[in-house]
C-alpha cells in the first residue's frame, strides 16, 4: 500500500512539473507583448519594465526562477492588475470551488440515482428514459445547457408567471447558484449514471445477490444493502476525471452566469494577454486536478483492497 501511494505521488509530482514546463514554454512562445498597447511607450521605460519583471534574463534562468517560486507559493504578479496572482486566485477560487462542489454533488447523487433506477428497472420505460437523459447529458455541452436554463427558468418563467425565483445571472441566492451547478453537472451526471448502471447490472448478477434473495431479504433491502454498496466502487474511479470536466467547465459557465470565479478571470486574462495570470491560473488548476486525481486513486486503493493485487501483478 505504501509503495502504491509513493508511486502515485511521484507520478503526481512529475505531472505537475511537466505542466509547469509546458506552461512556461507556451508563455515564452506567446506572441504579443504585455507592455505594448494602444499608447506609445518609451524604449527606456520598456527596458525598465522588462528588467522589473525579469523578462530580460536567459530562458533557463527565468524557468528556474519560476519553478522555485511556485514551490514557495509565489506565482508572480499579474501584469494587468498589478497584484500577486496568488491573491487573485485566493479571492476568486472560493466561488469556483463552491460551484464545482455543488455540481459534483449533484452529478454524483443524481447520477447514481438514475443509474440504479435504470439497472433495477432494466429494459423498461424507466431504463430507456434514464439512458436517454444520459446520452443527452453527454451530447449537450454545458454552456448550451446553461443558456437553455437561463432562457427557460429565468426568462420564460418570468414571461409566463410575472416572477421567477431564478435570476438570469448572479451568484447571490440559492436559486441563482442552482442553475450553473446543474448546467455544469449534466455531462458528469450522465457519465456517472451510465457507469452506475453497468456496474449495478454486474453486481445484480452475482451469487451473493441470489443468496440474499434466497434468504428472503426484501428486494429494496437487497438493493440498498448489497447491490448499491458494491456497485458504487467503480464510480469512485471516475470522480477524478469528472472533477476535471467540471472544473474546466467553470471557464464558460462562470462567464455565462457572471460568477466571480477563477474561470472569469482566466478568460479575461486570455483576452488581455496577461501572461503571468494565465500561467498562474493554469498551474493552479492543473495542480489542483492532479491532486484530486491522486486522492481519488488512493481512496480507491483504500476502499477496494483488490486494487493492490492488480498493481503487484503489473
Amino acid at each position, binding site marked *: 500500500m505504501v509503495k502504491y501511494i509513493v508511486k502515485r505521488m511521484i507520478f503526481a509530482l512529475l505531472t505537475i512539473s511537466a505542466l509547469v514546463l509546458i506552461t512556461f514554454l*507556451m508563455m515564452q512562445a506567446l*506572441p504579443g507583448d504585455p507592455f505594448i498597447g494602444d499608447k506609445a511607450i518609451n524604449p527606456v521605460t520598456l527596458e525598465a519594465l522588462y528588467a522589473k519583471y525579469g523578462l530580460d534574463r536567459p530562458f533557463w534562468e527565468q524557468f528556474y526562477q519560476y519553478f522555485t517560486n511556485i514551490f514557495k507559493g509565489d506565482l508572480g504578479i499579474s501584469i494587468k492588475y498589478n497584484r500577486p496572482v496568488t491573491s487573485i486566485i485566493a479571492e476568486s477560487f472560493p466561488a469556483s470551488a463552491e460551484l464545482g462542489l455543488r455540481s459534483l454533488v449533484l452529478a454524483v447523487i443524481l447520477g447514481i440515482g438514475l443509474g440504479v433506477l435504470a439497472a433495477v428497472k432494466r429494459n423498461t420505460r424507466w431504463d430507456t428514459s434514464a439512458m436517454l437523459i444520459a446520452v443527452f447529458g453527454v451530447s*449537450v455541452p454545458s*454552456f448550451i445547457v446553461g443558456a437553455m436554463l437561463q432562457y427557460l427558468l429565468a426568462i420564460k418563467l418570468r414571461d409566463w408567471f410575472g416572477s421567477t425565483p431564478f435570476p438570469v445571472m448572479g451568484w447571490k441566492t440559492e436559486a441563482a447558484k442552482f442553475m450553473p451547478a446543474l448546467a455544469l453537472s449534466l455531462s458528469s451526471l450522465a457519465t456517472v449514471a451510465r457507469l452506475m448502471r453497468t456496474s449495478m447490472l454486474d453486481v445484480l448478477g452475482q451469487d451473493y445477490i441470489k443468496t440474499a434473495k434466497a434468504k428472503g431479504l426484501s428486494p429494496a433491502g437487497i438493493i440498498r444493502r448489497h447491490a448499491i454498496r458494491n456497485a458504487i466502487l467503480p464510480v469512485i474511479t471516475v470522480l477524478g476525471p469528472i472533477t476535471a470536466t467540471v472544473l*474546466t467547465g467553470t*471557464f464558460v459557465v462562470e462567464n455565462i452566469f457572471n460568477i466571480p470565479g477563477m474561470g472569469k478571470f482566466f*478568460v479575461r486574462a486570455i483576452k488581455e494577454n496577461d501572461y503571468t495570470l494565465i500561467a498562474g491560473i493554469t498551474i493552479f488548476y492543473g495542480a489542483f486536478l*492532479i491532486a484530486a486525481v491522486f486522492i481519488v486513486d488512493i481512496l480507491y486503493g483504500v476502499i477496494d483492497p483488490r486494487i493492490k493485487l492488480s498493481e503487484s501483478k503489473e
Partner: protein
Amino acid sequence: MGKISTSKKRRHPFVPEAMTAPDAVLSASDFIWVGPDAEKQDLIARPSIGYWQDAIRRLRQNKAAMVSIGVLLFIMAMAIIVPLVSPYTISEQHLTHMNQGFFSVCEGNDGTEHLHIFGTDTLGRDLFVRTFHGARTSLVIAYSAVFINLVIGVFYGCICGYIGGTTDLVGMRLVEILNGIPYLIIVILMMMVLPQGIWTMVIAYGIIGWIGMARMTRGQILALKQNEFVIAARALGASSRRIIVQHLIPNTLSVVIVNITLSIPGAIFTEAFLSYIGMGVPIPEASWGTLAQEGVNYLQTYPEQLFIPAFFISITMLAFNILGDGLRDAFDPRLRR
C-alpha cells in the same frame, strides 16, 4: 459427392435395361418425380458471413444508429451544398433586415424580395448560410483533429505495445504524465501561441487528443500479439513491420472505429468551447461555436440566434454518440447490456 447420394435411399425404382437402350422409345409417363435432390440438400445454402458483414447486419438492425447515420449524412450534405447554392455569402449584410426570425422575407434595395430561412443575425447576415458554413468549419475541425489523433495514437500505441519492455514502460509513463494534465488547459495554451484559425484548432486538439487512442491501441496490441497467428507469421519469416501492418492493425480496427466515432463529439465540443471563450476561428468566419457565442449575447431578445447553432451542435454530438454506441454493440455483442 457421388457417394453421398448413393448411400441415401432412392425412392424411384431401378431403371430397366430396355429403357436405357439407344433405340428405346420414351414417353412422359416413363418418368417419375423423385423429389428434391439429396445432394443439393446437403449443400450450404447461404453464403458464409464474415466479421464485417455480421457487424454491418447487426448495425442495420439498430434503429437509433441508422437514424443517426441519416441525420449525420443530412447535415454533412447540407454543409457541402448550402454554402455553394446560397444566394448570400457568410459576411453579406442586410442592413435593413437585422435580427429577423425564421422564414423572414427581406426587401432588397432594387425592390426584389429574398427569403432568409433561419432569419438574420444582429449584423443582418443570413443565418441559414452561416449555420451550414459553420457546420463545414466545425466538422472539418473535428474530422481533421480526430484523424491526427488516429495517426499519432495508433502509431504510438503500436510501437509501445509491440516492442514492449523499456520502450513500453517509458512510453506509457510519458502518456500517463500527459494524461494527468487536463487537455483543455493545454489546448488553450497552444491556441494562444499559434495564430487564430481553423488549422490551429486542428493542431492544438490533434496534438493532445491522441492519448486515449494510444492507450487503447497498446492494450489491443498487447493482447493480440500473444495469438497463434502472430507466432505463425513470425515463424514464416514476416518482418515486424509486416506483422504490425498486416496482422495486428486490421484486428484492432473495430475498436479503433468505435473510438474514433466516440471521440468526434469531443472534438466538436472542444471547438465550440474554445470559440465560446473567444479563441475560435477569426471573424467573419463562422463555426457552430462562434455562432453560439454571438447568439448568447442576445439570448433575452433573440433566443433563436443561440438555439440554432446549439441545436446543431447537440444533435450532431448526439448522433455521433448514439452511432458510436451502436457500432460498439455491433462489433462486440457481448458488451451489450
